[in-house]
């Protein structure tokens, strides 16, 4: 998407040529000053010595990265072996975030399409309907979700009363509960970008396809999906990346039995550990992974665009 956006635009549109720097300036300035500088500080912190109970000592050290990659036993004096703990935690986060993104897409795309094909003012009413629940704080929403899906909660009671099941479905404190929580936390972040890219999309193409007796699903696959790709990609980024660092859904719905990256990093700054360099190092590893994936994808898009 990144490059997709960049490459395509450079090739065909330059209505505002020469104004690029000017229009980009506010974003550069505010993010550069209030985020890049602080994050650069954190990058430096990750190479410093940890101060006990939080903070750093200004002495160069690779201890944080060593802790991430090497296991030296409970007391830190065994011969170094490869540390699998944090790789496992990363893998778990990627998997959970990926599943949540998949569910969001599954439910979000049809919803976005449905909204985009409404008329006039109804459209904005539908849009608001999707975002209204998010006026309620995430903590409260997650607690309510917990209440809803617990073993003796309304969902199970209703299913049992209707005779569909005889024993309650155990959802709470499972991986699925975490995925459900992440899905619920970020659903509008999938729906709205897709809606934005399909709204008033020139339907002529797909209508033509329908005229040619293409089935609904062929039309969807060959004509519509490619056209809404930018929206889908934007939505996937907005769901997947924040899900990786989320901690409320894993803690409240998953029972906090297994760390995800978000909770692991939080523990380094707010927990007993107080290990800022390690927290910074884990964040930098996460950050560079996301950056690499985005850049790689951008390159791919660039190549496709060149055809």
């Amino acid at each position, binding site marked *: 998407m990144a490059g997709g956006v960049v490459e395509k635009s450079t090739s065909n549109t330059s209505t505002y040529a020469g104004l690029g720097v000017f229009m*980009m300036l506010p974003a550069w300035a505010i993010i*550069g000053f209030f985020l890049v500088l602080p994050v650069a500080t954190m990058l430096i912190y990750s190479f410093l010595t940890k101060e006990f109970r939080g903070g750093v000592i200004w002495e160069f050290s690779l201890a944080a990265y060593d802790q991430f990659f090497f296991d030296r036993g409970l007391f830190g004096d065994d011969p170094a072996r490869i540390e699998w703990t944090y790789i496992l935690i990363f893998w778990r986060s990627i998997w959970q975030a990926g599943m949540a993104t998949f569910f969001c897409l599954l439910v979000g795309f049809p919803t976005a399409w449905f909204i985009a094909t409404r008329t006039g003012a109804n459209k904005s*009413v539908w849009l*608001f309907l999707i975002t209204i629940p998010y*006026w309620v704080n995430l903590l409260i929403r997650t607690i309510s979700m917990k209440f809803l899906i617990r073993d003796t909660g309304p969902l199970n009671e209703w299913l049992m009363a209707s005779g569909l099941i005889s024993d309650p479905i155990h959802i709470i404190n499972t991986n699925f509960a975490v995925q459900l929580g992440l899905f619920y936390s970020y659903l509008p972040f999938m729906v709205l970008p897709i809606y934005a890219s399909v709204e008033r999309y020139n339907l002529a193409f797909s209508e033509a396809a329908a005229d040619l007796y293409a089935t609904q699903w062929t039309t969807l696959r060959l004509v519509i999906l490619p056209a809404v790709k930018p929206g889908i990609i934007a939505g996937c980024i907005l769901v997947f990346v924040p899900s990786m660092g989320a901690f409320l859904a894993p803690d409240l719905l998953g029972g906090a039995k297994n760390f995800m990256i978000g909770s692991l990093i939080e523990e380094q*700054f707010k927990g007993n550990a107080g290990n800022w360099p390690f927290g910074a190092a884990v964040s930098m590893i996460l950050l560079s992974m996301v950056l690499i994936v985005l850049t790689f994808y951008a390159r791919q898009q660039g190549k496709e665009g060149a055809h």
Partner: protein
Amino acid sequence: MAAKTDLRRFTGFLPMTFVCLFLLYAPLIIVMVYSFNDSKSITNWGGLSLRWYEEVFWGVESAKFKAAALNSLSIAVVAAISATTIATMAATAMLRAGRFRGKSISFALINLPLMVPEIVTAVATLVFFSAIGFTTGYLTILLAHIVFCIPFAYLPIAARMQGIEDVYEQAAMDLYATRFETFRLILLPLMMPGIISGFLLAFIISLDDFIITNFVKGAGIETLPTAIFGSVKQGIKPNIMAISTLLLMVSVGFVTLSWLVGRMGQNKK
């Protein structure tokens, strides 16, 4: 016409939309019901009562919660408007301004707030603010919120703009419209769905933020999330449910209003 009807009604899309709405609203029904709970519990039903609404409006803590709600809403509105404006300009630069210096790293830069874990942004920002001698307060919260709202506004706007071919703008320019007129009269209206989506996402992400706010806020300033998360010593009481329900009512009020305004606009035509 038949083809168009087909497109509007893909098999399974309507049921899926209702699944979506059901999933979104089911937990809220719990919130609303328990806001009328007579018990102090948020999980056990103790009879119908308005006591929590009474507490929200006239209780000893009411002033604090009201101030927190006002702070949250005002910060969310200002941050979302600023972020949407910045993101719209940035998207126009990225997609409509040809090549310029620094363009290649701009995408990563704009999405950086999304990629840095919140707690890291929180600690780093506070360290930075104190290093440059910024006093924490309302303004520091606002600045931090604008920064992390930008990608949430940018991505829908850019996704929208990618789908708009520039033939309309070219036509306008051919008819001697200035670049500003072209932007205002052609591009901006076409981008509106993206801008609205971006604004709404920025708004709800600002309204929900706890971690960053908790670090960069100054003495005496609470937002609703910091008030709610900070209640650990007392436990979560149904008064939070009552506040949430009231907020929902406010937002439903906005929707009804916008729908009425939209309908009036249509009738005039």
